[in-house]
């Protein structure tokens, strides 16, 4: 008897405050700034968007901070990159978020990778001896504008499902984004066209979709294996290979140390380019289209210098 009274008091004290009234706009939490930007393109002022990881942060290694739990607990829709990118930090946020709406499988949980083109899906047995390989393919898929369009469409469909009254608004926003993206794509394609087939080196395997889309040829990585920091022997081999093939450009994400890439660039007489792998990765990359504007401009300027074309 005494026990049950104590338990009830416990529960009553914890419940305390009554549930908040629902907000009018759809509250969206996206795990990355890229997804947040695409959601904003489609959702406009009918949604509010919060991004968890910053664009200049390694999206594999994010602290599941309690402040993120607060954001997740208030969300109507959680958009994730998926493909195991957030495996190390999102699950505890979703569990601690105490939010039935955004649990995996619920209506408010959206895996943005559902309809996109995924590269590097392993076809044979993988082990951790290969480094940080993702069993569901390369998760950096948003770096292909074609995939950006597909993500935007997936988000649009989900927003319509959550807020059917705004269907016309979301449709119109998506059509507008689609048009602007198509115009930008033809711009990027024509500036990149002269450099098709140019060989480059990247730090991590973050760029296969970007390189495939714009026809650049990645011949090696600064990391010996995904997620494994550079080693001397691998660096020496890479320098030899770059010299042999005449490779001058090394592309690095903003969250990696530049010491090794710069040493390699010095040896081969090349250049290190810090590109933005995500919206917010540099201050110029304020939205999804400007992200490619920035990256394409930086790459083209360097290639122009290197090739004289």
């Amino acid at each position, binding site marked *: 008897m005494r026990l049950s009274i104590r338990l009830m008091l*416990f529960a009553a004290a914890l419940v305390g405050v009554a549930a908040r009234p629902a907000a009018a706009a759809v509250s969206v939490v996206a795990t990355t700034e890229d997804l947040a930007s695409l959601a904003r393109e489609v959702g406009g002022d009918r949604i509010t968007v919060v991004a968890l990881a910053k664009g200049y942060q390694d999206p594999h290694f994010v602290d599941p901070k309690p402040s993120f739990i607060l954001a997740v607990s208030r969300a109507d829709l959680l958009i994730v990159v998926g493909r195991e990118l957030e495996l190390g930090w999102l699950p505890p946020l979703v569990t601690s978020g105490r939010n039935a709406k955004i649990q995996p499988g619920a209506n408010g949980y959206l895996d943005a990778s559902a309809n996109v083109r995924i590269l590097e899906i392993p*076809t044979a047995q993988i082990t951790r001896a290969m480094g940080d390989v993702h069993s569901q393919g390369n998760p950096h898929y948003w770096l292909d504008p074609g995939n950006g369009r597909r993500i935007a469409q997936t988000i649009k469909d989900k927003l319509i499902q959550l807020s059917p009254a705004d269907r016309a608004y979301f449709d119109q926003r998506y059509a507008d984004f689609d048009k602007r993206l198509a115009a930008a794509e033809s711009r990027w394609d024509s500036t990149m066209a002269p450099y098709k087939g140019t060989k480059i080196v990247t730090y991590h395997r973050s760029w296969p979709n970007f390189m495939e889309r714009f026809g650049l040829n990645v011949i090696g990585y600064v990391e010996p294996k995904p997620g494994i920091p550079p080693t001397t022997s691998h660096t020496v081999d890479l320098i030899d290979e770059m010299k042999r093939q005449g490779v001058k450009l090394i592309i690095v994400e903003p969250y990696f140390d530049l010491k090794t890439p710069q040493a390699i660039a010095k040896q081969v007489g090349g250049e290190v380019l810090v590109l933005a792998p995500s919206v917010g990765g540099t201050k110029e990359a304020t939205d999804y289209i400007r992200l490619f504007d920035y990256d394409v401009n930086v790459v083209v300027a360097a290639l122009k210098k290197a090739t004289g074309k």
Partner: protein
Amino acid sequence: MQPNRLVQVCVISACLVAVPVMTSAQTADSRALRQEIDQLRADFEMLRQQYGDRLSALEARLAALKDAAPAPLPVSGVSANSSKVFNPDMSVIGNFVGVAGRNPMSDQPSLSLTEVEAAFQAVVDPYARADFFLSASPEGLEVEEGYITFTSLPAGLLLKAGKMRAQFGKVNTMHTHILPWADRPLVSQNLFGGEEGLTDAGLSVSRLIPNSFMFIDAVGEVYRGDSAVFHSEARSKLNYVGRLRGYRDLTEGTNVDLGVSYARGPSAALPGSGTRLTGVDATFRYRPLRRAIYRQFVGRTEFVWSRQDVPAGAQQNASGFYASADYQFARRWFIGARGDRSGRALDSALHDSGGSISLTFRPSEFGLIRGQYRHTRYAEGIDANELLLQLSFSIGAHGAHTF
């Protein structure tokens, strides 16, 4: 049928009649005709060739497309492993510790596989997830934790039921392999159960307290009373634990984490008496986002007060604390230091103190090698200087840890 055949017969007979008449007169015409037929035949042959080529080219392209097309997109797991999709995430973590140096107060062997932890974690259904941690140590195999978490309760509640580590302070909630040290602090060993800690069967309810200033989480727990600190012999006597945790981001790279914890219940050390524990903990973290994989600092301290209510005797009050700092100075290297001081729960006149420094190398996220020098001065006046070597290694898919 009948009229058709009639027509055919007529045409053939007409031809037969006509040809001999025409042969002599129109040899030139027939030559031209033959030429035309040959021409047509050649044209036809060329067309056939062209269409054949185009067809085989199309077939080749189709086959190439089939190869290049992305495989159907699995939503979880790899298609090749689809039979394992519903298996829980499974992992095994080994913790190997070697000790050198003299310590008459400790019976820790020179080399031992102190723990093998097997974890099984998965979502149960749309309403809950389950986590099991089995721990095999030289003492035997036991369920370290095994609980269900209801994630979809109303009013922002989170309910856990099963056997689990009580939410008392910080170090009590941590599994061995995520501690920044090769051992547990003196205060934990003297006042709240050491390695095993407050781990018991019970219920845990927590709720976020909404406010605009900081993250506040309130936890209330009730346990059966069967841990290293609390022991109950009656159903009506239970062990209660409460915790209030506040967290705030100072900047994007720095934050503070504060907590107050309280636990009370029947004492395990003195049957018939009660034990109360009060704890305060503070953590400061620094991790610059742009260099998050290279630099990190965590400073942490935890104070615990213990009170034993002896039925017919003097009340025993003891307290202790540790303060630690850990700094990551390269992608795979960490250094750390810890200061310790703690009274003994049953004799408030006795105090142990000590200190440690450590160097940790993490070749990958899945393993670590740690060297730790530990000095301990026991209340009896005994000094112990020890060198600890820890190897921790994990295989399989281990769920992410809470922050």
